[in-house]
């Protein structure tokens, strides 16, 4: 089924690969549709869907450009964005490297264990020496390969004068290997190769789990990203136009912005008029009408006919970049957060090291000889940095993130889960967070014909009201009528013909409060009123948070009147009209007062607040930058994942603490045995496997906790 991955490079001269991110791929049908329909287009050789990453790789002739392919995807029903490079490639490579190391360590562990069991069950003399030599031959390359992640990280920590979990691991493994080699060469009775390799194997499993969780959720988030203007058509003095990448634009250039295109820089409209969708910057869903002289900002989407824009600020000077800078600075504080595993190892590592040294000195003083003393010191090192410690955190976090993904919440990494568990105040943005952020019409008055005509018209347009109308109709199960001769007039609406009758959707003839449009089919007319509804389960979610001891507030940049309406409906304290800087300041104040605020928001104006908050969540409809800044992204129209995330995060931390307690309890039992020289390689091997299995088993209980929430 996966056979067509490698494409033959025979006629590669005139063929190229372009990759698109297509967030709407949700089922087998979507895969089949894209992979069957696209190659029917002339110039497209093949299309390959990667479902996990929500990407499509298209192999096509050089004559087709990104625009043609995006259009082709849209005509078969998928919104797509070209991706120039893969920001996830590095992460991906790390995960692969770890998986390879796990495979190598697993191979080594099994084979060495096979030989060790024979030694334990009584092999002696030449046979034992032979088995030790064979073990050494297998173990040395395996440790060299599979141990690299630990050695590299331990070296890094030591270079900066710090210590982490990897330092005792590396020292233990290296010493055990060196001593085992010595034993092998001198025909000793015990070698510890299997302990060293098994330690690496279990620890690598923990690392690989951690990395897999990160790539899986980041792929989901990455699929949602990438809607910003990345290039612009610059008009040359001779009237021709040329595509220029966003970072190469200069102030003073005249650019042509086509309908549906996102602006790549700030500027002033010089020719043309229409409306822009500023949702990315402000989170406000009502389109803003613009004409000659209006200021427009990077990230805004031009809704109607083409306009010419004289650029005033580019790259680092745009309003968007300013907010990005704020976000960057705000995010600094979060990088100071120390993960629980590192906090544990800061206390733990010095104890382990001094115990090992003390054991060595003690046995030397007792006259045991340097060889036996060293063996005991190593046994202490190996047995006290058990795999249980390395697995305690990632095992629980991976299971929890799996449970959360099933409920529509993508958590970026383990540290996000740890921080989510600690929040005690929740701040919500209004538009797009507590509300859906897209205008929804009241369609109860329409009859069946009117509904299908309305969908036929609305789906042809990119105007936010049309999109809202089409979404509402589709969710009612309406199928579109075939409307011919559809024409969209900027600021006026859509017209077309259906069964010979003139049909249209457009601006209402009488002025209405709020957003409205008028549908006409023949002589009949309906006025459709739009509003931005509160998410259906906002109330329950806020109650759930309350019962978890988290107080909720509204923190919005919108006008006071609109915010008060939502606040009174939900019974929340609200602060309206807050600028990004004010939001940031409020968060800093809360933090200074000893609170751990959770920020839930979607607009770019929430970006700095999202980055500064102790933990943050954004809806999947949020702007790219906000999704980048947030710790987690929730999908769908329900707000419930927010409360669910906190519940699961707290359960996870409870399990992690149990795991730690277990690991410490195990040490209290094992350390005296090791100190008195009673730990043979056999005991070490059994203790290690059993403790790891218990920790993993305990973590798996979280999967059930996720189901209990129903």
């Amino acid at each position, binding site marked *: *089924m*996966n056979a067509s*991955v*490698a494409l033959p490079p025979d006629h590669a001269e005139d063929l190229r690969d372009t990759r698109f991110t297509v967030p709407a791929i949700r*089922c*087998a*049908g979507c*895969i*089949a549709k894209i992979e*069957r329909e696209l190659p029917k287009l002339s110039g497209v050789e093949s299309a390959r*869907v*990667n*479902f*996990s*990453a929500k990407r499509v790789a298209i192999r096509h002739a050089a004559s087709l450009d990104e625009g043609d392919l995006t259009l082709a995807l849209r005509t078969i029903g998928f919104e797509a964005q070209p991706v120039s490079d893969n920001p996830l490639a590095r992460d991906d490579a790390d995960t*692969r490297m770890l*998986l*390879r190391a796990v*495979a*190598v360590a697993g*191979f080594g562990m*099994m*084979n060495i264990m*096979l030989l060790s069991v024979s030694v334990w069950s009584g092999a002696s003399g030449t*046979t034992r020496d032979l088995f030790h030599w*064979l073990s050494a031959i*297998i173990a040395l390359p395996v440790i060299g390969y599979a141990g690299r992640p630990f050695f590299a990280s331990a070296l890094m920590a030591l270079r900066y004068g710090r210590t982490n979990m990897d330092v005792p691991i590396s020292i233990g493994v290296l010493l055990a290997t060196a001593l085992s080699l010595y034993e092998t060469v001198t025909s000793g009775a015990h070698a510890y190769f299997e302990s060293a390799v098994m330690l690496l194997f279990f620890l690598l499993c923990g690392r690989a789990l951690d990395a897999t969780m990160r790539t899986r959720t980041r792929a989901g988030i990455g699929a949602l990203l990438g809607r910003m203007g990345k290039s612009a058509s610059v008009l040359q003095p001779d009237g021709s136009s040329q595509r220029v990448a966003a970072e190469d634009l200069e102030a003073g250039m005249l650019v042509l912005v086509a309908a549906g295109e996102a602006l790549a820089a700030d500027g002033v409209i010089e020719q043309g008029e229409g409306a822009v969708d500023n949702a990315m910057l402000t989170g406000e869903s009502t389109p803003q009408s613009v004409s000659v002289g209006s200021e427009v900002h990077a990230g805004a989407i031009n809704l109607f006919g083409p306009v010419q824009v004289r650029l005033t600020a580019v790259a680092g000077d745009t309003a968007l970049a300013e907010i990005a800078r704020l976000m960057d600075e705000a995010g600094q504080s979060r990088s100071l957060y120390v993960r629980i595993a590192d906090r544990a190892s800061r206390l733990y590592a010095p104890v382990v090291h001094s115990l090992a040294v003390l054991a060595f000195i003690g046995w030397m003083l007792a006259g045991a000889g340097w060889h036996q003393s060293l063996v005991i010191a190593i046994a202490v090192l190996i047995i006290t940095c058990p795999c249980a410690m390395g697995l305690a955190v990632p095992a629980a976090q991976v299971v929890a993130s799996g449970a959360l993904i099933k409920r529509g919440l993508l958590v970026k990494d383990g540290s996000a889960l740890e921080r989510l568990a600690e929040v005690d105040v929740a701040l919500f943005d209004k538009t797009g967070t507590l509300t859906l952020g897209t205008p929804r019409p009241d369609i109860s008055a329409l009859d069946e014909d009117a509904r299908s005509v309305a969908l036929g018209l609305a789906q042809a347009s990119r105007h936010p009201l049309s999109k809202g109308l089409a979404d509402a109709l589709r969710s009612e199960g309406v199928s579109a009528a075939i409307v011919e001769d559809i024409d969209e007039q900027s600021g006026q609406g859509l017209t077309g013909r259906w069964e010979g009758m003139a049909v249209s959707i457009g601006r209402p003839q009488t002025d209405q409060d709020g957003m409205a449009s008028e549908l006409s089919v023949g002589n009949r007319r309906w006025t459709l009123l739009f509003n931005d509804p509160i998410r259906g389960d906002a109330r329950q979610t806020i109650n759930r948070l309350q019962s978890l001891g988290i107080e909720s507030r509204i923190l919005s940049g919108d006008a006071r009147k609109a915010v008060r309406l939502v606040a009174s409906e939900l019974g929340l304290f609200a602060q309206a009209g807050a600028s990004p800087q004010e939001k940031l300041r409020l968060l800093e104040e809360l933090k200074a007062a000893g609170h751990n605020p959770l920020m839930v928001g979607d607009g770019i104006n929430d970006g700095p607040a999202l980055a500064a908050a102790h933990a943050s969540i954004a809806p999947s409809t949020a702007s790219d930058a906000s999704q980048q800044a947030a710790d987690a992204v929730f999908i769908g129209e329900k707000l419930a994942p927010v409360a669910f995330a906190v519940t699961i995060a707290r359960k996870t931390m409870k399990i992690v603490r149990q795991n730690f307690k277990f690991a410490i309890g195990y040490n209290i039992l094992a350390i005296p045995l090791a100190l008195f020289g009673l730990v043979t390689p056999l005991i070490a091997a059994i203790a290690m496997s059993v403790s790891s299995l218990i920790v993993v088993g305990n973590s798996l209980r979280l999967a059930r906790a996720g189901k209990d929430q129903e």
Partner: protein
Amino acid sequence: MTGLAFLIPIALGMGLLGLAAFFWAMRSGQFDDMDGAAHRILIDEDDE
């Protein structure tokens, strides 16, 4: 004892074979799209 001369190389060889198979699978992209593989089984292959 002579049995060991056969059995140990066989055991090692089989282990290495498994390892090689895993590396090959990873290199050829078998693990690139785990969720996709689960869905692709549902696609009806015959064109009507």
